[in-house]
C-alpha cells in the first residue's frame, strides 16, 4: 500500500484516519478525505469507507474493483 491518505479537516478533533488491511485483499480506509495515487493525483473520498487496491491490477485505481480475486500469482 503506497497511496498516502490525508485526514479529513472536517472530522471531529482527535479523529484519525483508520487503516485496516484485508488479508489477500485491499486496505480499508476510514476518515480520509483525499487519497493520493502513485503519480501524485488527488482522489476525493466520497464514501464512508473506501478500499484501496494493493494488487496493482485494478481498473479503477486507486480504488479496489475486486480484481485481486481473479489474480493467481
Amino acid at each position, binding site marked *: 500500500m503506497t497511496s498516502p491518505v490525508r485526514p479529513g479537516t472536517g472530522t471531529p478533533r482527535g479523529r484519525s484516519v483508520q487503516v485496516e488491511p*484485508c488479508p489477500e*485483499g*485491499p486496505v*480499508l480506509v476510514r476518515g480520509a478525505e483525499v487519497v493520493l495515487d502513485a503519480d501524485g493525483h488527488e482522489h476525493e473520498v*466520497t*464514501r*464512508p*469507507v*473506501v*478500499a484501496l487496491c494493493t494488487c496493482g491490477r485494478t*481498473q*479503477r485505481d486507486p*480504488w*479496489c*474493483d*475486486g*480484481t485481486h*480475486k*481473479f489474480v493467481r500469482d
Partner: protein
Amino acid sequence: MAVVDHGYTCVAHRCKDPAVPHSLCWGAMRLPRPRGPLSALTATSLISAVGPSTDRFLVELDGLAPSCDVIVNDDFQLSLWMLYELHYRGFDDVDPELEWDPRVLACRRLLERRFEHELRFRTEAPAQKARKQAHQVQNQQPADTLAQQLGWLIEHMEGPRLAPYLQREATREEMLEFLAVRSVYHLKESDPHSFVLPRLDGGAKVALAELQYDEYGAGRVPRLHQTLYGDALEAAGLDRSYGAYVEHTPGSTLATSNVMSLLCLHQRHRGAALGHLAAFEATSSAPCRKIAAGIDRLGFPDAVAAYWREHVEADAVHEQVAIRDLCGRLVTDAPRLHDDVLFGAACCLYLDALAATHLLDGWQAGRRTPVGAGR
C-alpha cells in the same frame, strides 16, 4: 385457474405527470394481477372486508401439485411478495392496518414455512461441506473460519454465466428484460437489511450501519442507490415506478427478493440475513463490471451503466466490510449464529443461481418477456 378480476389494469402507479416528482409516486402501487389460485386468494383477502383465513390458505397450499416447486412458482412467490410488501411501501388499494393483522401474519407464516423448509433442504449439502472446511486449520479465530467457509461457498455455488452473457451476447431486448425484472429488488435496494439493525449489537451493528449509510447515498440524495437504479431504468426507456415490473417478474426472481424479507423480518434469522448480505456483496463487484460493459456495448445512455459502475467500486468495499466486520464480529460475539450465517449465504447463492438459470434458459429457448421499452 381462478383469476380474480379486480377491475383495474395497471400493476403499479403509472405517474405520467412530469410535474409530480417520482419520489411522490412510490407509495401509489396497486395489487398486482394474480397468477394463480393462491395469489388470487391473497389479493382478494387483502381487499375484502372479511380478511384472510388460514383455512383457505391451507386449502390452496394443499392444492399445489406435489411436483410444485414453490421456490420458482410464480403464484406462490407473488403471494409471498404481496404479503411482504405490506411492510415496505404497501398498496394503494389495501388497508395499511393489515400490515400487523394477526390473520395476515398467520397466512404469511404458512407460506414462509414452506419457503424456508425448501431453502433448508436445498442448501443443507453445500452448507455442510462448507462447515467441514474449518477442521483443516488449527487454532483459527471464529471470524477467520467463517471467512474461509463463506469463501468456499461462494467459489462452489457460483451461478451460471449470466454477467458474461450480458456483457458479450445479450440483445437489447434481453438487457431490458434483465433491468426490468431486477427492479423488483433494486428499487428497494438495502431496505430489507434496515430491519436487521435493531436486532444487532456492538460491532456488527456499526458495520451494518456503515454499509447502509453508503447504500443510502452517504448523505447525498441523488446518490441513493435506489434512485440511481430508477435513473438507470428511466435512461433505458423503462418505467421507474416502484413495482412496475412485478407482473413481468418470474417466480425465481421474486424469490431472490422474498428471501431477504424472510431473513430480515425475523429476529431469529438475523445471522442468516447477514450471511445473505455478505454473499450478495461478495458476488457483485465483478459481475457489475461486466453488466456495465454489456450496457455500453448495446449503446444505452451513460446513466444506465452508471448504476452498475457505482457498484463495482462500492461492492468491492462492501464485500470486505460484510465478510470481515459484519459477519466476523457477529460470530465472534455470538458463536451460536455461525451456522445461520452460512445458511443465509447459501440461500443467496442458490437463489441467485436459480434466477440466472431461469433467465438464460428462457432466452436460449426463445422465451422473451417484452417489457415495453424503447422510449
